[in-house]
């Protein structure tokens, strides 16, 4: 091994350790305190409170126009706020200009510099200040190694594929060893098959680096497969913050229950309360639900039943909840089948089952079927806000 390559390997090794040193999970990396944002008369963000722990992968999810990208721009300093504070590792950065924050971002369309090579793009953040040329080269090399870009360093941006561009964008953002990485729908410009692979790579990368990732998306699959915690936003407000399991099994609001998409919502009135079992009269029939909260007869509530908790049978079976409905269609997604049914009152119900392909074909369209599920699988939400 030549002298030069030994030196390079050592440099790589040290750089790797500095990149990969995880910070204890207890420290808070990013804190958003009571942030509000107005454009003239229009308020686009209301009372946003969020703290992100070091090394945490947080996904901000919501429909377009919910303010999630605005929030990301606020963290980066690209947009100002009307009231509130942004703290990064304890330091108040609310008034700090964008270029002094070290909160790099991965853009939706990557925003790579088209006139520079891959190497120059990655090095960009180091070439602006006091870094010396001979410090920069090994860092770029290490980063290229981490992102599997060694072969591409001298390419022009226009010669790269979508996946390669994304890796360059991530490498460019991470070169200054930031405490946090912001990602704005980074998968939306990729092919679907590449998207799934990149989800795994991104999660692994985040765990290797041990820094917080804040990931904005409108895609549930991405949020659920990568995030430690999910923030669901709607109309400029945070609807719920929780682990993917919490968001999935205990939606806090109607919006979350509907947005997460695999729930059936039945509106009704409480007619009887017996310990934790609540009886709800819905147009579709009586529904028995489990609730720890205090409900009284006469309360308007919504029963939430996840689509994968519903059983589908041709004959009535003994179960606490049972509704008759006719099959309107089915969709095959790998080993999973989604059935669409319609109740006698015209209400659409979604059922998700793990089933063998041939079993599902046995059911004819418009077949009269029975939907059944357990009381424990039924959650209750208060009246719609």
């Amino acid at each position, binding site marked *: 091994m030549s002298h030069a390559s030994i030196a390079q390997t050592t440099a790589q090794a040290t750089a790797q350790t500095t990149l990969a040193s995880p910070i204890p999970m207890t420290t808070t990396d990013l804190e958003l305190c009571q942030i509000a944002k107005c454009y003239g008369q229009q308020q686009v963000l209301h009372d946003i409170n969020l703290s992100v722990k070091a090394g945490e992968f947080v996904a901000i999810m919501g429909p377009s126009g919910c303010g999630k990208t605005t929030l990301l721009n606020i963290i*980066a300093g*690209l947009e100002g706020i009307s009231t509130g504070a942004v703290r990064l590792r304890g330091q108040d950065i609310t008034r700090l200009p*964008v*270029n*002094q924050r*070290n*909160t*790099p*971002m991965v*853009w*939706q*369309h990557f*925003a*790579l*510099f*088209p*006139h520079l090579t891959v190497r120059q793009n990655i090095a*960009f*953040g180091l070439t*602006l*200040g006091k870094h010396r040329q001979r410090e920069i080269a090994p860092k770029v090399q290490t980063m290229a190694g981490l992102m599997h870009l060694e072969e591409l360093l001298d390419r022009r941006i226009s010669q790269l594929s979508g996946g390669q561009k994304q890796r360059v964008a991530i490498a*460019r*953002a991470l070169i*200054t060893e930031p405490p946090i990485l912001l990602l704005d729908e980074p998968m939306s410009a990729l092919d679907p098959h590449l998207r799934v692979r990149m989800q795994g790579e991104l999660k692994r990368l985040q765990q290797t680096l041990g820094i917080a990732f804040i990931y904005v998306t409108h895609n549930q699959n991405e949020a659920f497969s990568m995030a430690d915690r999910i923030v669901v936003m709607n109309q400029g407000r945070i609807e719920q913050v929780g682990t993917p399991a919490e968001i999935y099994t205990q939606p806090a609001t109607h919006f979350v229950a509907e947005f997460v998409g695999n729930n059936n919502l039945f509106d009704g009135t409480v007619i009887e309360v017996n310990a934790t079992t609540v009886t709800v009269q819905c147009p579709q029939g009586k529904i028995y639900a489990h609730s720890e909260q205090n409900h009284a007869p006469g309360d308007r509530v919504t029963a939430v039943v996840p689509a994968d908790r519903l059983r589908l049978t041709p004959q009535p079976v003994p179960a606490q909840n049972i509704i008759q409905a006719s099959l309107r269609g089915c969709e095959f997604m790998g080993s999973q089948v989604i059935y669409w049914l319609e109740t006698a009152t015209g209400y659409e119900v979604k059922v998700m089952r793990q089933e063998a392909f041939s079993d599902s074909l046995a059911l004819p369209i418009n077949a009269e079927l029975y939907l059944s599920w357990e009381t424990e699988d039924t959650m209750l939400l208060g009246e719609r806000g």
Partner: protein
Amino acid sequence: MTRQHQSWFRHSLAASGWVYLALGYGLLMLPILTLVIFSFETSRFPTLPWTGWTWDWYRQLLSDGKLLQALRASLLVSPLAAGIATILGFFAAYALNRFEFPGKKVLTILLIVPILVPPLILGVAFLGLLSRINLQGHLHSILLCHVVILIPTAIALITLRLMQMPKAIEQAAWNLGATEWQALWRVVLPWSIPGIAGAFLLAFTFSFDEFVIAWFVSGFEPTLPVSIYNFLGSNLSPALNAVGTIVFLMSVLLLIGVELLLLPMLLAQPTKSEP
């Protein structure tokens, strides 16, 4: 009609199209071709029959101090005026593209107005203004006037290029630690190069050919078009054909440069910036 008839008809239609095209280009090019050919003709008068080839008129031109001095003046004024107009145009275009401010529409319209005013009126106006402030009659008078009339074109061309730049690219530079100036210098400027170079070449060509305003304000230090006009008034010499050939050659080279730089830019789709 039989198939043979049809194909004959199609061929003759295509052929007549080519003839028409050739005639059009021929008529356009004929005066220039005549000019170039007769700049090498031995006879003093541009008439046939052809009497022989000669470099004499080019030699005479080189020995005539006035025209050469005017050429030198033009080669000083035009790149300078084009350069200043392009630099000012770049900053104006950047500001108009990036910022929203009250009165932006009015300002944009005001910037376009000089293009709409006939050069003759501009020339008189410039002369009136410059003579009041004692700046008339020199090379710098032409320079000032040319800068003023070249700026709108420069702004328009550079704005066109800047509009194609995704806003995220500049934001990415700030986000990675660049100051406003660093981002401008290292990201926005490289992006704008095709627009800047195109604007410079177009401005150069325009200034190099511009006669009316230069005639009004130049006084005793004329640029080449003014000098040619003066020369025409005093005598008719084939040396003019030689000047014309040289000027034509320079213009062609410049215009090829302009086309190479501007065409891809004009044909490109403007990218919508992210909200």
